[in-house]
């Protein structure tokens, strides 16, 4: 049985009196891609931000690589990386400069070679000397992914990585993510509103609703459990259902 790379225990985040994340527990095994699903406001981004140390949990515990994140934040972040559709890299720097800055922050060895590798991987080599602010939305997203793969992270947190990509590039990105997992035995946490993404990429999903986990299983198991045709129908049912538990 592979070890748990990421283990979340009874994690809670309360803002004033609102529970954004409500006593959730889950784990991700080495080499697994876990989809974190939920409608807007379900608590996905808050959960990811807690995993990155950007938000301090109200209670609960996060262990990554067997270490308590609260006490070993820098060590854990050195071996992790993330990509979010809500962030971008400074637009006044060239593509290679941005990658050089973050490669240095993450202590990447043979940085010039690694920059070329990730640019090749994401089909961005021809944009190496472009100003980052002049990239299209899709190119900027791929640049974010280049940054996320720079340090060859053992744990990769991807927050809607294909949100602004056209179907062709999105398909390539999904392939790259799976290939990266296979080549590096990496563990990936993946959030997306695109259910096709999730069905294609994720080994297992955790469905959040109003801050609580309402289902955990493989995408196929989830479709069967809710007696729907596909994951998108499940998502719509949960989103429109007032009482999710009764929908189960």
């Amino acid at each position, binding site marked *: 049985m592979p070890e748990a790379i990421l283990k979340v225990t009874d994690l809670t*985040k309360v*803002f004033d009196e609102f529970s*954004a994340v409500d006593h959730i527990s889950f784990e991700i095994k080495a080499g697994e891609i876990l989809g974190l699903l939920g409608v807007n406001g379900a608590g996905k*981004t*808050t959960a990811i*931000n807690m995993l*990155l*140390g*950007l*938000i*301090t949990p109200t209670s609960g515990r996060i262990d990554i690589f067997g270490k308590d994140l609260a006490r070993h*934040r*820098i*060590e854990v*972040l*050195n071996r992790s990386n*993330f990509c*979010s559709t*809500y*962030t*971008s*890299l*400074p*637009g*006044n720097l060239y593509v290679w400069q941005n990658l050089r800055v*973050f490669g240095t*922050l*993450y*202590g990447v060895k043979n940085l010039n070679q690694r920059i070329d590798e990730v640019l090749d991987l994401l089909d961005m080599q021809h944009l190496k000397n472009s100003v980052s602010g002049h990239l299209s939305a899709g190119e900027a997203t791929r640049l974010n992914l280049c*940054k996320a793969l720079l340090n060859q992270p053992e744990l990769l947190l991807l927050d809607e990585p294909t949100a602004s990509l056209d179907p062709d590039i999105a398909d390539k990105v999904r392939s790259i993510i799976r290939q990266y997992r296979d080549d590096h035995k990496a563990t990936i946490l993946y959030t997306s509103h695109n259910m096709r993404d999730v069905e294609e990429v994720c080994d297992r999903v955790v469905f959040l609703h109003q801050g609580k986990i309402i289902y955990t299983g493989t995408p196929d198991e989830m479709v069967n459990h809710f007696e729907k045709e596909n994951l998108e129908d499940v998502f719509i049912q949960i989103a429109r259902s007032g009482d999710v538990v009764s929908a189960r």
Partner: protein
Amino acid sequence: MVELAFWPFVQLLVWGYLTKYLQNNAGGNFPHTITFLIGAVILWDILFRAQQGVAIFFLEDVWTRNLLNIFAAPVRISDYLLSTFVIGFLRAAFTVTLLCILAATLYSFNVTTFNWYIVPFFGHLMIFGWALGMISTALILRWGPAAESLAWAVPFLIQPFAAVFYPVSELPQWLQWIAWTLPCSHIFEGMREVLAHGTLSGHNLLWATLLNAFYLLAAGALFTKVTKIARQRGLLTRFVSQ
């Protein structure tokens, strides 16, 4: 470049020609001593650029939606602050060098008039600028984008009491007490002393050192505390999504 060269240049022009006007129309020793206005413009810019280096560095990451990338990277708060200090130093060094050359060319104001005292002047104003930058950034982090203007406002909030363009003695007594709590007031008083007499009494430097140590430690503690609060209340992420 506009920020680092154009605005400081325009300010130097205004104060430089005002100095010339006063020199040509005043009697006694005043025309000689009034040159401190040009020195004040140059030294004030050290403080301002150092503060801006810290505060604008943070805001640039906010504006480019890069803040989370930085705070989710394996970067300690101390590393982050140190890098902003370096940016502040480079900004100040560039602008001050430019202003010194222009002041010498346009108004025959030679910065070597300060003698070696320019080194502690530069150092103290730089350190106080860093402290003000940390305070500005902490307030922006705590109160969000609505408080962005503090990045520019904070130095000018203290300028009236900092004795930049006039001696502390010109202030009402109760404002003098405020002025003496600012390290930069001691430096600007020291600057006028050097320009007038060519010497600097030790007490101004001593007070500046003690006050700077206090402000730097207090500002660092405030920034660390606010960062902790920001993580607890999710301010870092809300900041980005606003």
